[in-house]
């Protein structure tokens, strides 16, 4: 038996607040082995000693249907914590006790922290704490987690009562079920069936509840006993079906609630007013979820979240960019020309800068979303939008991820993918994760800006609107497609609580935001840095051979040999083009032209370039030549790289994605380019493989590289199919 204390309770019961209150900053977040469920651990130091506290995922029950519940259950049986501190919302006592009863049935010592006593009091709920403790047979300590009230008493009780080994609670499920339970318990005990880990009666109960996990474990442990138990369950099931038109699993839940109301009726709780009377919170809901006002306010809130995330993160992002620009500049000046310099500047400094560049975005996004989540508004958004998103096999809560990713053009799929964490339904969450990269993120905008400026200058606004619509329609239709193929399956039940509106605590928001951000830096960061170096290598190696290099040198000498040394000095001394004489300008231009040609040749010869050239045969179908192909390969690093790489491929040297006029002009006159090619490329840009930072995040969030790989391959194939269709159809019509 460990000395750890498990903190468990319903969602919205104040569990996280209490955890933060108990552990302060002494906590860290990881994952339960093999799954993406967060595991929060911390230490609580008291006068008498220290406790390790594990914050179990918030659940309403302990079935095998959801990952969170299985994780919580496994932790309790495998780690055998010294005590479960069960947070119970006093203002919502009856439903919260449903989970408590299930803990008590497991036979682990339980201490109830009766939280939100202040809210209960305000609502006229009067609870006889001693009576409740006596009837349930566990200590009950009143607390108000937000203010820290009751924390000391709670810790004293835990210290005194932990490890005392509770007897498992035995409640009556009615004569039929009780008889079956007794019979099964005897069988289980006699055979020592799973009893090393689980209490016998609990296993019997889980057999009656048709619990998948326990049934599987049982079949592995001892086929014979498992079959006998299944026989008893079968007999009871047909008996209940015939006599009461009921199913054991349903009856057990009914009886648990029956047991709880039985306890509460014994003078435990008094309501000064009708419990279902409208509370403050419900009055707010009359406005916020009103048929007409609700959606309008929601659009406002989403715009607000969007502006908050992307406006306020600009300044810190600029600071970071400035910092990394400065470091890059230092490296530029200090290091000798060559591969090492290129690796350090283009691979490492840009890579680390790339990782950290997302940090302000992620922080502000999580701050905004945590506020919406903790205040209770997120649940209302899911409630209002569910009807629409369900059509596509998604969930009302998916909207957040789509908006952040660029549902309003200019977002970012990295925080967007992370925003999908608020979704509790696994299939809907996966479908959301895989389709949010189709949104028009801020990095795709420079690509559109370039192509629109070159080919659709008169219809700028209209084209942007069309692109936004295409990305939304595409994402939703693909979600539908995925949900009826690779992520097939029934919709996860929507049965969801609308928690009362609450003002989130600043401490909670900050801890939450910091945890998520730190996790991104630590886990995603290293992988991103690695891939960034690989991509650098692909765009650099093998470089030009000596003969070609000499040829370019010779061309340069041919220019410089014919001019006076004074003129050359003038060029190298001047910063920018200011003050240069006409003759010097002409020479400089010639030299830049050669530099551009050399860069183009080097790029074409690189691994990425060879891929681009090799793919030209197929990509012609969509109207792309090798230059576009290389640019798209580069776009895997970050979509705006498409612009700068295209610049290099057209011998213009590095093109600043924000300053694309020369490139736009070049494209207008370049052979093979037409508005149709541009449109085909824009379609491809919307749908093809997400940038690798997003891909890494998808792997992290789904817990498997399989889905990350899927998003690369599937999205690229889809994008190619769509661009070919657009290009070929366009050629026929135009």
């Amino acid at each position, binding site marked *: 038996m460990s000395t750890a204390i498990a903190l468990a309770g319903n969602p919205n019961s104040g569990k996280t607040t209490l955890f933060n209150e108990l552990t302060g900053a002494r906590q860290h977040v990881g994952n339960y082995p093999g799954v993406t469920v967060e595991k929060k651990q911390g230490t609580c130091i008291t006068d008498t000693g220290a406790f390790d506290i594990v914050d179990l995922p918030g659940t*309403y*029950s302990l*079935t095998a*249907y959801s990952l969170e519940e299985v994780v919580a259950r496994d932790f309790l049986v495998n780690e055998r914590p010294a005590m479960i501190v069960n947070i119970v919302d006093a*203002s*919502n006592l*009856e*439903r919260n006790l*449903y989970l408590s009863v299930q803990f008590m049935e497991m036979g682990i010592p339980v201490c109830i922290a009766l939280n939100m006593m202040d809210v209960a009091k305000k*609502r006229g*709920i009067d609870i006889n704490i001693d009576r409740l403790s006596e009837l349930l047979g566990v200590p009950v300590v009143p607390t108000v987690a937000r203010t820290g009230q009751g924390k000391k008493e709670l810790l004293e009780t835990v210290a005194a009562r932990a490890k005392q080994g509770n007897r498992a609670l035995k409640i009556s499920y009615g004569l039929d079920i009780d008889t079956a339970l007794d019979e099964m318990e005897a069988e289980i005990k006699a055979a020592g069936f799973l009893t090393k880990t689980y209490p016998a009666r609990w296993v019997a109960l889980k057999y009656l509840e048709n619990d998948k996990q326990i049934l599987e474990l049982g079949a592995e442990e001892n086929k014979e006993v498992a079959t006998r138990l299944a026989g008893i369950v079968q007999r009871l099931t047909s008996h209940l079906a015939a006599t009461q038109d009921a*199913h054991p*699993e*349903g009856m057990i*839940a*009914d009886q648990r*609630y*029956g047991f709880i109301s039985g306890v509460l009726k014994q003078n435990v709780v008094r309501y000064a007013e009708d*419990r*279902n009377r409208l509370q403050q*919170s*419900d009055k707010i*809901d*009359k406005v916020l*979820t*009103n*048929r*007409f006002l*609700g*959606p309008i306010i929601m659009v406002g809130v989403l715009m607000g979240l969007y502006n908050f995330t992307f406006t306020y993160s600009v300044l810190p992002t600029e600071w970071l960019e400035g910092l990394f620009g400065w470091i890059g500049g230092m490296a530029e000046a200090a290091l000798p020309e060559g591969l090492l310099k290129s690796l350090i500047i283009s691979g490492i400094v840009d890579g680390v800068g790339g990782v950290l560049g997302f940090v302000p975005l992620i922080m502000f996004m999580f701050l905004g979303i945590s506020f919406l989540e903790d205040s209770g508004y997120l*649940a209302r958004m899911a*409630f*209002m939008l*569910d*009807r*629409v998103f*369900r059509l596509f096999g998604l969930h009302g809560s998916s909207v957040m991820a789509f908006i952040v990713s660029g549902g309003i053009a200019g977002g970012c799929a990295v925080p967007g993918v992370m925003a999908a964490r608020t979704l509790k339904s696994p299939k809907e969450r996966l479908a959301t994760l895989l389709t949010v990269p189709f949104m028009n993120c801020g990095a795709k905008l420079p690509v559109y800006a370039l192509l629109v400026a070159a080919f659709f200058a008169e219809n700028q606004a209209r084209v942007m609107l069309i692109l936004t619509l295409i990305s939304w329609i595409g994402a939703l239709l693909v979600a539908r497609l995925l949900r009826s193929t690779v992520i097939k399956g*029934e919709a*996860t*039940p*929507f*049965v*969801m*609580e*609308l*928690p*009362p509106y609450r003002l989130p605590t600043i401490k909670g928001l900050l801890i939450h935001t910091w945890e998520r951000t730190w996790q991104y830096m630590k886990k995603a960061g290293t992988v991103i840095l690695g891939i960034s170096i690989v991509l650098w290598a692909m765009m650099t190696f093998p470089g030009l051979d000596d003969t070609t290099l000499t040829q370019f040198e010779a061309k340069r000498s041919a220019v410089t040999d014919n001019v006076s040394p004074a003129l050359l000095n003038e060029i190298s001394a001047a910063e920018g083009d200011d003050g240069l004489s006409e003759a010097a300008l002409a020479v400089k231009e010639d030299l830049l032209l050669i530099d551009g040609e050399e860069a183009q040749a080097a790029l074409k010869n690189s691994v990425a370039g060879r891929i681009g050239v090799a793919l030209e045969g197929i990509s012609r179908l969509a109207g792309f030549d090798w230059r576009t192909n290389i640019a798209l390969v580069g776009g895997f690093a970050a979509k705006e790289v498409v612009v700068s790489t295209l610049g290099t491929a057209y011998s213009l040297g590095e093109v600043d994605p924000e300053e694309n006029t020369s490139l736009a002009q070049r494209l207008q006159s370049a052979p093979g380019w037409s508005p149709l090619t541009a449109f085909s490329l824009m379609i491809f840009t919307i749908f093809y493989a997400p940038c690798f930072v997003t891909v890494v995040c998808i792997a992290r969030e789904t817990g498997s590289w399989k889905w990350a790989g899927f998003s690369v391959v599937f999205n690229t194939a889809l994008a190619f199919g769509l661009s070919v269709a657009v290009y070929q159809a366009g050629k026929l019509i135009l």
Partner: protein
Amino acid sequence: MVKINLRQMQVDQTGTIASVKADGELGRRIRDMGLVPGKEIKVQGRAPLYDPVSLRIMGFTLTLRNNEADHIQVEVSQER
């Protein structure tokens, strides 16, 4: 008293749950949240597109989709 389907209830109407006919995960989720026979509920509102529905039970607010509400029979008084 008459038995009707939860989907047919009007906003602000109250009733007592008579039976829950769902099993598997949906049945379990519905019951876990306290929608079991004998509990009083009150329909609190509907989403702008009329689905899902939100209701009060045991002093808290719960939402479920109409096709999930179909599994729940409610006893209501005849007026209305």
